[in-house]
């Protein structure tokens, strides 16, 4: 599935919710479910400090595809972290760099990515893009060598 397709899928999933409570319940479920980062990466080195909640992010690159894993200490934040991972992980740096996060607007969660939230999510997205950029650079260098 492409990034765009995953985003459309998520928009579809959220379209059945009538109100914020159902949405939040879904986020909470998603937040609870998954151990989405290996404990060895849940350290200060991988910490993105929001003032309200904290996010850990790890990225790896096999030469073609970027893999992200992440976690948060707050469960709703973690639910959104989970969505972001589902969308962006497993794609090439190019794909990640040319896509955006407007799907969060469409499912009514835009506010969580506001710079005023200080929950670490906005910084997480920036950090993911940065990783993609670095990996792209690396890949290009290898090609040129």
């Amino acid at each position, binding site marked *: 599935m492409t990034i765009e397709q995953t985003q459309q899928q998520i928009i579809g999933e959220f379209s059945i919710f009538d109100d914020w409570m159902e949405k939040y319940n879904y986020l909470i479920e998603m937040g609870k479910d998954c151990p989405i980062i290996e404990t060895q990466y849940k350290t200060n080195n991988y910490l993105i400090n929001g003032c*309200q909640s904290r996010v850990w992010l790890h990225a790896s690159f096999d030469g073609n595809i970027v893999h992200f894993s992440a976690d948060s200490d707050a469960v709703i934040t973690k639910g959104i972290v989970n969505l972001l991972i589902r969308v962006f992980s497993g794609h090439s740096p190019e794909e990640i760099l040319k896509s955006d996060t407007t799907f969060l607007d469409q499912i009514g969660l835009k506010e969580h990515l506001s710079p005023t939230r200080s929950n670490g999510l906005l910084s997480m997205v920036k950090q993911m893009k940065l990783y993609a950029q670095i990996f792209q650079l690396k890949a290009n260098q290898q090609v040129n060598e």
Partner: protein
Amino acid sequence: MEKKLPFDIRAVRLQFPALDQLVYNKPFVYLDNAATTQKPRVVIDRVKAWYELENSNIHRGVHYLSQQGTIAFENARQTVANFINSKSSREIIFTKGTTDSMNLLASSLGKLLVKEGDSVLVTGMEHHSNFVPWQQLCVERKANFLVAGITENGEVDLDHYTELLEKKPKIVSIAHVSNVLGTINPIEEMIRLAHVYDIPVVIDGAQSICNQKIDVQALDCDFFAFSGHKMYAPMGVGVLFGKEKWLDAMPPYQFGGEMVNQVSIDETSFNVLPFKFEAGTPNVSAVLGLESAINFIETIGNVSIAAYKDQLIQYALQRLAEVKGIKFIGNPVHRASVISFLIDEIHPYDAGMIIDKLGIAIRTGHHCAQPIMERFGIPGTMRASFAMYNTFEEIDIFVAAVKKAAIMLS
């Protein structure tokens, strides 16, 4: 829910336009009063009237509006002096807020008193604004930063405090009321203990000023600081009370404007109190708004307000105790209108978001008081704080919301 109320809450609420609105289509419940209070109509109107008819730059102007403005401004200073029972309006310095007042002190009183090897004493429950300025002063001066411990109940460990006083710190600075725990510190006693060694005591009154009648002469504190915006007044004004003997001895903090007396290229002499500490064009509108807020508070009565808020707190504590898994952070014997709590392992940010969606404003996080978070080994709390316009019904709505959040999140 019928209780004997010391004043007509419904009538008081009507004075606060911001309370009468829907948030997410739900009646707005404002329980973030320790962060800032809403403003009564008289305060809003006072600010408006200033800009509509009276606005001018005060002091030194010969023209009519400037003269009238100066008189109004200095009358407001006298109102503040009376409000906290200071001896003279010369002891009342207008600042930007408590943070500004504390930074003024750390700089100016610091210059006067603190040298290498000296020490400064605060407590472990201070707001950053009464912690970091002193800490940084100590770093700069190579002085020792002493921090009195906090008990499991969230009270200052008075034995530890007394012990630290024996190190003869040059300055003691303590919160009257903790903005996280709600603890009312026994500052009369703490001041008396410090005065045994002739140590001047600074009181951070940001959270106490609208919780009880303040009498700086009875307290015998050397300094007392507070913010207008936490006592129904506009943003952008704070007060620093200081005993005249200290203010006289202290060097100025900021330079320029009214605080200057004579300037030449070679030297400058400074104005008398209180002007010596007020550099630049003052925020007249906010000072006049502060005066209106004081009049508003005094019309209802400090004692009545305190009594009512105490009823609210007791009721809120009792109702919150129903919530399964709730843990109060701080169980002080004397508590002002702040309650901090956690529920089981639920992250306060999660709960806060859900409570927000129900139209209720509380605060979550470390409340600019990380040392006390560290003390209790927690990342933050949920905090509800009350003002004279809150009601028992609002507490019911709030407790229902907390229960709902707890269910959703566990």
